[in-house]
Every structure is written in C-alpha cells, then in structure tokens.
C-alpha cells in the first residue's frame, strides 16, 4: 500500500452552518494525499483530521461512491464534479491533481437547490418534476407479456441513453440560467421514444415542463454546458426533442379541446 507520491494540497471549501446562515470559503491544508484516493476519500481524510482537532467536519452528500446514485454534488474548481469528463465526484481520483494545487470546492449554486449545510443541497425539486409526469401510468400486475411489446434495438438503445440520467443536478449547477432542461428532457425523451410512453406523451411533456418552471429553474440558451459536464454524458439532442414534444403537445391539446367540445 505504498503512497509514494503523496501530494500536499490547499482546499478552499464552502462552509455554511445551516440553510438560514451565511456561508464563506474556508482554507484547509491536506498532506500526503495518494493519487489513488478518490476525491471523497480525500475529504474523509480531512474530516477525520478536523474531528480530532475538535472542528466540525464538512458535510457533503455521497452514498454509493460508484458513480450511479447521483447523490454526490460538488462544484470543484468551478466545474460540477470536477475536471474529468463523464465522471461523478466520487469517481474523480486524486491523480487528476498535482502536488501544490489549490482546489476550490463549493455546493451546487441554483435557487431551486437551496444549501442545507456546507456542500449539501436540497434537490427535492427534481423529485417533484418526476412526480408531475415522469412515469407510465401502469398499476402493478396490469400488464401484457414483456415480449408482446417489441421495440427496435436502435430505439431501445436511444431510450436507454436518456434513461441513464442519475439526477445529480450538475446540469443545473453549471448552467448560467440554472436551467433543468437536460434533466427534464432526458426523462421526456426516454418515454417519448418507447411505445409504453405514447398514451401520456403529450400530457407528460406539458406537465413536466410546467413543474420545471414552477420550481424556478431557468430557460435554455443553448450553451451546451449541461451536456458537457453531465457525468452520464446525456446528449443535448434530448433538449431539442423535448422542445418538439412540448410544442406538439400544445397543438395536440388544442385539438383535444375541440374533440371534447364535439367539433
């Protein structure tokens, strides 16, 4: 277990006691950091040191540490999840840095993601968007045999690509408008591509977009930074698809009103 290439680093970390208090950047030094450590393991080391010194350890969200649960959420040197492409904070390893570096660490910055403490933010706004329509309305047991719904492989693969979103919020954090459109469009696209999603397709697009707006997320100005920092590399294509889905839904809604009126 050699840690021959131990690094000494300076960390500037956002500290905030709770959601009502003001926060500030605080400097910390860490030494003898192995390049094989993950970024969060470096934080574990720092937290152990703080604790033993009698200082409050830094709160941050994390769980699976395998890059799939979407809980970790650090803004590292001005970039959500740090310098590696297609990588969550927990999978970022210290070999991405070099001895003597100064690293800035902040929580997600967006009005719909209020800071709860230090680097921990509240992302329940994402859950409410899914609750607005990010599902197929099928009760347990009310189904046909799985192979009675054939789906062409390219379509299934494309739906899968959209479905890999881990709901971490990096797309919002990086966007100058705090737009959630990559997150919302990934779910709308997944279900719009699949036959199972067709019956509620128009309603879903409208409801989810409405909820997104109600939560206070901004609009999209096509800078593409969301897709660039997305740890699952969700394509910008999803946003274009969502815009089309939303527009079609608006038109369809007018038609449906006419049917309902018996025209």
């Amino acid at each position, binding site marked *: *277990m050699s840690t021959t290439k131990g690094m000494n680093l300076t960390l500037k970390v956002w500290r905030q*006691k*709770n959601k009502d208090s003001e926060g500030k950047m605080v400097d910390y030094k860490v030494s003898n950091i*192995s390049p*094989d*450590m*993950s970024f969060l*393991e470096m934080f*574990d*080391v720092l937290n152990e040191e703080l*604790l*033993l010194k009698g*200082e*409050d*350890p830094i*709160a941050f969200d994390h769980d*699976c*540490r*395998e890059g*799939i*649960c*979407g*809980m970790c959420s650090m803004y590292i040197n001005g970039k959500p999840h740090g310098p*590696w492409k*297609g990588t969550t904070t927990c*999978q970022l*390893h210290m070999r991405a840095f070099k001895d003597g570096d100064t690293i800035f660490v902040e929580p997600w910055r967006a009005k719909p993601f209020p800071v709860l*403490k230090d680097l*921990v933010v*509240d*992302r*329940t706004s994402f*859950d409410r968007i*899914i*609750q607005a329509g*990010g*599902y*197929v*309305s*099928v*009760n*347990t*047991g009310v*189904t046909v045999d*799985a*192979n009675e719904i*054939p*789906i*062409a*492989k390219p379509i*299934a693969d494309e*739906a*899968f690509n959209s479905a*890999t979103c881990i*709901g971490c919020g990096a797309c919002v954090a990086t966007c100058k408008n705090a737009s959630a459109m990559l997150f919302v469009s990934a779910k709308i696209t*997944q*279900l719009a591509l*699949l036959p*199972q*999603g067709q019956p509620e397709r128009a309603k879903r697009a409208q409801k989810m977009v409405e909820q997104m707006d109600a939560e206070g997320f901004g609009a999209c100005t096509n800078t593409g930074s969301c897709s660039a920092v997305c740890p699952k590399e969700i394509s910008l294509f999803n946003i274009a698809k969502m815009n089309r889905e939303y527009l079609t839904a608006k038109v369809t809604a007018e038609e449906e009103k006419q049917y309902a009126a018996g025209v």
Partner: protein
Amino acid sequence: MKLESKAPEGLLAEKWAKHKFNMKLVNPANKRKYDVIVVGTGLAGASAAASLAELGYNVKAFCYQDSPRRAHSIAAQGGINAAKNYQNDGDSVYRLFYDTIKGGDYRAREANVYRLAQVSVNIIDQCVAQGVPFAREYGGLLDNRSFGGSQVSRTFYARGQTGQQLLLGAYSALSRQIANGKVTMYPRTEMLDVVTIDGKARGIVTRNLVTGAIESHSAHAVLLCTGGYGNVFFLSTNAMGCNASAAFRAYRKGAFFSNPCYTQIHPTCIPVSGDHQSKLTLMSESLRNDGRVWVPKKAGDNRPASQIPEDERDYFLERKYPSFGNLVPRDVASRNAKYVCDEGRGVGETKLAVYLDFADAIKRNGEGWVSAKYGNLFDMYAKITGENPYKQPMRIYPAVHYTMGGLWVDYNLMTTIPGLYALGECNFSDHGANRLGASALMQGLADGYFVIPYTIGDYLAGMPVTKVETSHPEFQKAEKALKEQMTKLINIKGNKTVDQYHRELGKIMWDQCGMSRSAEGLKLAKKQIRELRADFWKNVKILGTDEELNITLEKAYRVADFLELGELMVDDALNREESCGGHFREEYQYDGEAKRNDDEFAYVAAWEYKGEGETQLHKEELVFENVKLTQRSYK
C-alpha cells in the same frame, strides 16, 4: 416460541395460488382506512409502497437519502433473473426454483423459493410496462445472458446498469403515487425504532437528518425494506449510508434475526489500494462470462502479466471446475481466489488479487464487441485504478457484497412481531446460505410488487381500522429513549473517531468471520468485539449537537448497532458447525470444498434478543419435499 413458516400445504406448484385464494381480502372501501409505513425505497420498498398505494392504502415512505431514487439497489449492475424461457434453452419455473435452492446450499425454504421463481416472470412484464429499457435483440425482443451459477440464459439486463433502470422504474411508480396523494414521502429521515402496542407493530420513531428532530409515525403495519448489513465489515460494496439500524432495532424489540453468519463475498471487486479506502467497488460478475481468471503457477512470480507465458499461468477455476469453469457460484469463486493468494500466487502490488483477463475475448471478437458489452465496467475500472483493462488484465479480489441473513419472516413476509414485515435483502428468506447472481433484484421486486400486496391484506383484514395516536405512551417512551441515546453519545466526548472504531470492527469481522472461519478465530472475535464495544461507549468522539445535520452522530449510532450485530454474526457462525454456501468453517471441509451437515444443521437459526450480547436460539427445521439434498458440485 415455536416458529411457524405458515407455508401452505399441498403441491409445491399450487401452494401460492391456493394461499392467495385462502387469504382474507380487505374491502376496497376499507383500504383507505389503513395506514402502512414503508421504510426504505430501494427495489423492495419503492415497489411495495407504490403497489400498496395503488390498492388504496395510505402509505408513508421513508429513506435516509435526499431522494428515494438513490437507494443502493441502483448500483446493481448485472441483471435480473426470470424463468421466461425466452431463449428456448430449457429454463422453467421449476429449474429456477431448483437452481436457487441448490445455489443456496439447501438452506432456504422450498415454498418461498418456488413462489419467487413463479412471480419472476411477472416482474419482467411489469418493468417493461413501466418503460424500463432492457437490452433487446435486433428483432426487437428482449435479450438474455447467462450469469454465474446458471447454465441457462435467463438474465435480463440493461447494459451494466440494470439496478438503476429497475429502481428508476419503481421510483417512477412511487412518484406517481406521491403525486396522487396516496404516498407521503419522507426523504433524509431515518427510522430508529419500531413501536409495538399490545404485541403488534403500530409505528416507528424517526430522526430527521437535517434538523435532528425525533418524530413518531403511527400505522396499522410497518414494512422494513432497509437492505442488508454488509457494512458491518466497514469495507464492502454497499453504499456509505447503508446500515442495519432499522433491522437491528426491530430485533431488539423482539423480531428474530436469522442466519446472520450468511454473508456473500463477491469474487469480482476492485482490490483495496490503500489505507484510505472507504468502500469497495464491485464489477458485475457478468464479466466472468467472457473474462478468464488466472494467477501465475509459481508463487512469488513478480513479472507483469504480459511477460508470463501461457504455460506458466494457472486458470484455476477452469482447471478445478471444468464443467462450470469461470462461472462457478460466487462463494466457490471467492474462496478459490483466497486460496491462491494464500499460496503466495496473488498478483499486483498487494498480492491480494487475481487476474481477470479479456485477451482471448478481444482476440476472438474484437475490442468493439467487448466495449459494447462491458464498456461502462471497463471505464469504471480505468478511472479507479488508472490502468487500461483493454491492454492489461484487470485485477480483482473478493469483497463483502450481500447478506443472505436478515430478519426471520414467515411465508407472508411477516417477522415474529405481528404487523412488522421485512422485504428484500432485509429478510432472510430466499437465498439460503448463498445467493445466485441476478437474484437480489428479482427478490426485492417479487416481495414488493407481487407478495406483500396480497399477504398484508390477510393481516389488515383482521385489524380494527382504529388509529393509534402518536401521543400514546409507547411512542413517548421510544422517543425519550432515542433522545437519551443521542445525548449519551454526544456527551462521551472521547478521543477516537467513529470511523476508527468502524475500521477496527471491520477488520475483526473480515479476518475471523469473512471468507473462512474457525471456532478459535470466532471466539477471539467475540472477545475483541465486546472490548471494542465497551471502549466505543467510553471513548468515542462526536462534535456538535443532536439538533442539526450531524454526519458524525449519524455514523455513531449506526456503528453502535454494528458493534452489537457483529457479535451476533459471530455467535451464529460459531453455532453453525458445518460449511455451507457463504459460511465456510475450516473444521468442516474436504479438499477445500464446503462440507454440509444436513443431519444436524438443516435448519434456519433464528436469534431472539435477550439483552445486550445475550441471545436465545430458535430453530426452524427445513423440510425438503421436492428437492433431494446433494453435495453441491460444479466440477
């Protein structure tokens, strides 16, 4: 107390249908008068909460994460089994049942396992209907692959992210019911006690992880879907927050804990790289379909893999188990990796690793083919180790992954506390002493979608609809005890961190109650755990208060429970004087293979809490009416 499995009489294939007919129903208009608490929102919890809400019950769901979508089911990679026989290769409900019983080394209840195999086919239908994007063939139909321990292709998968896709499916169903107002969701809320009134589970006490508030919630029934206890070992493939507190505190309230010594050590994990290691990362064992496991023939061979000629390599699984080769069940694969490392033939810097080599697969089918099948796993390996697995073989080593033991439940998934249920990994029921690959997802969803919606009705139909108030003295008593525990922990003000204790406990467990166990080692472990626990309560250091987001306090009460559960695992391992599945006792073996003792140990051990470190053992004899007990052989 005599343990009654309540498994119905009659032919195996007819038990569940008969039982469903015989169970009482709750009138649709009455369902809305019953409240059900679901703790945990992984596959079992999310599917149960959604299904019960669809039926009309009022559900309160709890998870410690910031969102129900993050439960650790999400990290399952390889797939989910189902007896669809879509590949026409001889699969059937009976074969899945048989494989699961045999794979579990004949330590599971026949009736439960058969039901699991039966409902497995409905799970796939359900998930597809929700829009889960399983892998498909060019004809548009579902693809399958074979998986460790099985000779048929019955595993459905979504690239290497099957757990994620299944969980997001269940989460979407749950979200729909939250929107409908039938489920109230409590994220960042941890259950810390179960409240019983007149012998029945009537609610829980929770801690709000943001404010620290201790709160009571009452209901007519409580479902624990809180996963396993692998984090007792400190290093495991579990998520950092996974803990045993809900199940353990139910055990302290009278729910029996079964077979705690059955832990699964997964063979294909990325080896430990240093003392800073916080958790271990699994790579799906689907890799064993195309990767070949080997070590050098000579001990102490320090040459890089590329310089070791073919005839100086030992493909030890293929050599010892010619008919299953690299696809032997997990316990067998793990144990053999340990043996070759013990012989000094391990590889890498730490010598605690074996190679998993894709050179042949790449030569046969090309890098593109391997990347399409396993790309995300290869990327993950490269990020963690800094090595390119397309160019040099991966290094793997076994790690704690899953716990087959858990709360004892009857055929209805009810624990020994009436009204308290345990679903998914939290219970002990279906995997015996060893779980087959791709069966955890199957069991979680079977319990949540297709078992509990039926069995809970049978219980609630006999319950008055009257609600209990949380002002009831039992709730007040539990709240008070919890607040006292928090205060006690904070006031210790010692000088050792929670993680230091957790690491020490993990090392004791891994050394003495891990892949290989002996009476001598287990007795030593019991003594060490007791000393460590005593020291913890004198010397642990926690800062801050209990009325805020306090990450150290959270860890502390979870580790306090691990320190007791670890001892229970050791007790169970000592008691079980045989080797079976994931439990390998050095005294009971022949040629390194597990030696079961069916005459004396074909029972489920169910432990009753009798005070800290004190237990009483109860036994549920396992009766095998359909399967003949044989020594497992994968040779």
